[in-house]
């Protein structure tokens, strides 16, 4: 075995995998100071990860692939960390740099940039099925809440706890969107909660004992008891009073819409607890461990740390207490599955393949392909205080991330040793955002969806800008104690909106910006990153065509290719927005080129983030000679049509 390594031309990289061990001990488990802030800690942790990956190579006698080229690393890092290809300038700068630490520096820059937040939002939106609206109510506060959590790098365990225990009005606490999303389907919500955060699927047990593993229908109901009795929406009598008024003959349509806005935003948009941690079994319950219609107390799934349960005999539980306990149990360090699932999700996000897959089907028995590595990642995440940004940084800094792409396709869902990243088609958002990079300068600037959080959107237009926000409406209305008085309030508000001449002199800078962002989506629909557009985009839109999640079920994004996508590349969106759009960024960049060779360089850097090979240079020099006028368009179209463009290497 030793000889094998000695012969290995990639031994340099491999030496690094071995050498990591000594320094890896340094800086770990420092505990007291926020460890994630220290570069030394992160790099040492990265080496430790490499050592554990390397151990698997040694065990399986695998030669590690060589280190990726700068160009491969560049494109892979951009797409993985911030969700788009680098612009021409960004690519040229990195490739031309001769700094020795430029890879580490690039990762730090990318993860510190706003593009990271944008790309991370796509990931969260797919996982949480975050939508722009829940039936009638706005999803904007929820979207905003998620974006804020990413921006402030809220620790994952804190984030999950806030979601699961969320309560109050939507405009006060966006996190209630987690339950608003599944209004009327709380049992499904519980199945989803278990799947997202514990990587365990219990939905089958909702209707019958699980056929493949040991989940019993009783256990499902015991879990569902934690959230049973939650109330979504409040003061139904107020709501129906308003609704009756709206239906009165000859009702002013504007006033009717204002009343609706109030109903949807205040009375329909809140989460409150009325449950005490118990639930009734269904009327057709057919197992021996319970009777149809019998009431059972909440109990957490066994095998996930210290159980919590609610006894029916004790009357101590107040409304919602059970749900709080449930949230505590979920994120408890004693719940090993909680950490394992997110560590694996993050690993997959960075490395392209999970340590175990599927990510969310514990009972399928898929064991981590590298148990020691899995254990270390869990430990690391706890050490990092569930800081996902810092955790990902460590992964990006590994040599494992930097290996050349794997030439062979690994069978899906089988254990992978991470010898080189698997080729993977870009996600819908990555395709969209990369095309945007070819189309406009500074693609990561414009913000849209969710940032209208405060704006009162009346008939798709922001009104009372700088004077009043949705939050104001919520707190004012909720303080009113009779339905008739709310109607009065609606009449008043209607007058104000009618009389609103814009202006908003008193608007604070921040507020003005939010208003602006609310309008961005309307103005710049084709020129914003996917994360700033509607969530999800309507069916038929380019993003959906390329597999953006419809947000109906967890992680429903798809990277399957189909023929309509190719048609769109050849004849549709790409042809119209990029190739035949002389004003697009890529053409500006190319036109600045001095010689044909320079222009070809620029096309390659813009689209494939690398310089052309000799053969390619010759091919396109010929092309420039033959087709003077159309050569640039032809080259741009041809490069976008390659598999190289559509796949992350």
């Amino acid at each position, binding site marked *: 075995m030793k000889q094998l390594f000695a012969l290995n031309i990639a031994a340099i990289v491999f030496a690094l995998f071995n050498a990591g061990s000594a320094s890896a001990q340094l800086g770990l488990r420092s505990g007291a100071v926020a460890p994630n802030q220290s570069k030394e800690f992160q790099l040492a942790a990265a080496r430790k990860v490499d050592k554990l990956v390397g151990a698997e190579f040694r065990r399986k006698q695998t030669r590690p692939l060589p280190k990726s080229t700068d160009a491969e690393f560049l494109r892979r890092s951009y797409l993985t960390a911030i969700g788009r290809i680098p612009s021409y300038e960004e690519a040229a700068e990195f490739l031309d740099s001769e700094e020795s630490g430029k890879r580490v520096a690039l990762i730090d820059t990318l993860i510190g940039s706003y593009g990271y937040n944008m790309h991370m939002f796509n990931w969260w939106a797919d996982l949480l099925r975050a939508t722009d609206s829940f039936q009638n109510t706005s999803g904007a506060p929820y979207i905003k809440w998620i974006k804020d959590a990413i921006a402030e790098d809220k620790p994952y365990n804190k984030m999950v706890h806030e979601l699961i225990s969320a309560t109050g009005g939507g405009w006060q606490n966006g996190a209630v969107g987690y339950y608003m999303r599944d209004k009327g389907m709380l049992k499904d919500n519980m199945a989803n909660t278990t799947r997202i955060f514990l990587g365990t699927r219990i939905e089958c047990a909702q209707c019958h004992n699980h056929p*493949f593993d040991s989940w019993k229908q009783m256990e499902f109901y015991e879990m569902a008891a934690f959230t049973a009795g939650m109330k979504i929406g409040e003061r139904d009598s107020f709501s129906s009073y308003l609704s009756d008024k709206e239906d009165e003959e000859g009702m002013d349509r504007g006033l009717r819409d204002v009343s609706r806005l109030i109903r949807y935003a205040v009375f329909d948009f809140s989460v409150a607890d009325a449950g005490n941690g118990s639930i009734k079994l269904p009327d057709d319950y057919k197992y021996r461990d319970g009777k149809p219609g019998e009431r059972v107390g909440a109990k957490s799934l066994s095998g996930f740390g210290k159980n919590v349960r609610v006894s029916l005999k004790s009357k101590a539980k107040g409304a919602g207490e059970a749900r709080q306990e449930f949230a505590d149990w979920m994120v408890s360090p004693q719940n090993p599955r909680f950490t394992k699932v997110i560590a694996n999700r993050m690993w997959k996000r960075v490395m392209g393949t999970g340590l175990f897959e599927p990510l969310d089907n514990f009972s*399928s028995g898929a064991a981590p392909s590298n148990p020691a590595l899995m254990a270390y990642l869990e430990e690391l995440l706890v050490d990092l205080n569930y800081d996902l940004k810092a955790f990902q940084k460590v992964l990006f800094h590994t040599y494992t991330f930097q290996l050349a792409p794997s030439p062979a396709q690994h069978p899906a869902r*089988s254990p992978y040793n991470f010898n080189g990243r698997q080729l993977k088609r870009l996600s819908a958002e990555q395709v969209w955002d990369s095309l945007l990079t070819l189309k406009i300068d500074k693609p990561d600037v414009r913000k849209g969806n969710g940032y209208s959080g405060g704006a009162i959107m009346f008939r798709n237009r922001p009104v009372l800008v700088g004077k009043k926000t949705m939050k104001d409406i919520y707190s004012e209305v909720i303080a009113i104690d009779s339905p008739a008085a709310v109607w009065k309030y609606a009449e008043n508000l209607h007058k104000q909106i009618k009389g609103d001449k814009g202006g908003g002199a008193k608007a604070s800078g921040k507020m003005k910006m939010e208003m602006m962002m609310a309008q961005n989506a309307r103005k710049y629909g084709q020129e914003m990153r996917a994360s700033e557009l509607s969530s999800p985009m309507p069916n038929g839109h380019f993003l959906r065509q390329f597999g953006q999640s419809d947000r109906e079920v967890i992680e429903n994004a798809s990277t399957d290719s189909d023929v309509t996508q190719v048609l769109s590349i050849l004849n549709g969106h790409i042809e119209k927005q990029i190739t035949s759009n002389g004003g697009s960024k890529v053409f500006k960049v190319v036109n600045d080129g001095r010689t044909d060779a320079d222009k070809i360089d620029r096309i390659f850097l813009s689209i494939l983030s690398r310089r052309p090979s000799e053969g390619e240079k010759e091919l396109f020099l010929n092309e420039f000679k033959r087709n003077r006028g159309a050569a640039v368009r032809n080259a741009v179209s041809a490069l976008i049509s390659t598999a190289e463009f559509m796949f992350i290497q």
Partner: protein
Amino acid sequence: MVMMINKFICPVLFLLVATVSPGQGVDFKKQIAPILSSKCNSCHTAKKKESDKKPKAGLALNTSGGIRAGRVIEPGDASSSELFIRVSLPKTDEELMPPTDDGGPLSAKEIALIKKWIDDGARFGSGSGGDIGKIAADLDVAKVMAMPMREPNADAVAHLEGLGATISQLAVNLPQQLVVEWISTYHKTTDKEIEQILHIAPNVVEVDLSRTKVTDEGLKHIGKLARLTHLNLSRTQITDKGLEHLSGLRSLQHLNLYGTGVSNAALPTLAKHRKLKALYTWQTKITADGLSKLRKALPDAKLVLETDAKSNRYDNLDNPDNKFDF
């Protein structure tokens, strides 16, 4: 908690493929059929009579048509083909076929053969192109009728498919009875291609020649398909003369002549098809008067000239100037 082995993992398999030499084609009849016959067909066989058990999962693996109709192979791609996936699962997987208590799993060699056969395109012929022989010059309807209705020659079917025909069997459990259509290739289908249908003459029960370039002359070949029950000639250039070639088709039940040059002169010929149950004559030169005469010869047949709506609201369409650019 019961741990299940991930069903998509089959590491052993990748080593096995090597045992089948890559250069050689797999012969379906000689190499694949015996595997299916001994290991699969006890459950997956088309019902032959009432008392037979139904094929499991509606999947009949005892005929090429059944295999195709069952949608268990993706020619050229074994790893996406259910047939291969299911036989190559680990022993512990509940989905493994054949089940362990019923002869499963297949041997490594058998699995490798199936993989190679599918990867090579899942051809049912001999694999070598096969010799389908010549069409006998003196073939006629009586000779065809006298031929036994065997499982069709897979090489002949492949040959015809190569000429743009779509060939399917009438039902999963009726593998001998074939439907021949020219679906996306009608615009380049002439008498020459159509003649090749005679290679499977005893098996053909339905033919769709709609919009093809078939001529009166070409109908000579169709006239030999003794067991034909359905014939669609709509929107072709055939005329009364061509129909005469069909007079030996005694089992013909459905004849679609819509949009052809057929006229009342063909009615005596048509009257000979005593089994005829439906005749479509919209946009031909056949008239309502003519049809009412035909009615006497074929009292129970449905004779469609135009829409059969009671109140003739749609007569404005019965206009010879109406042109269609299909």
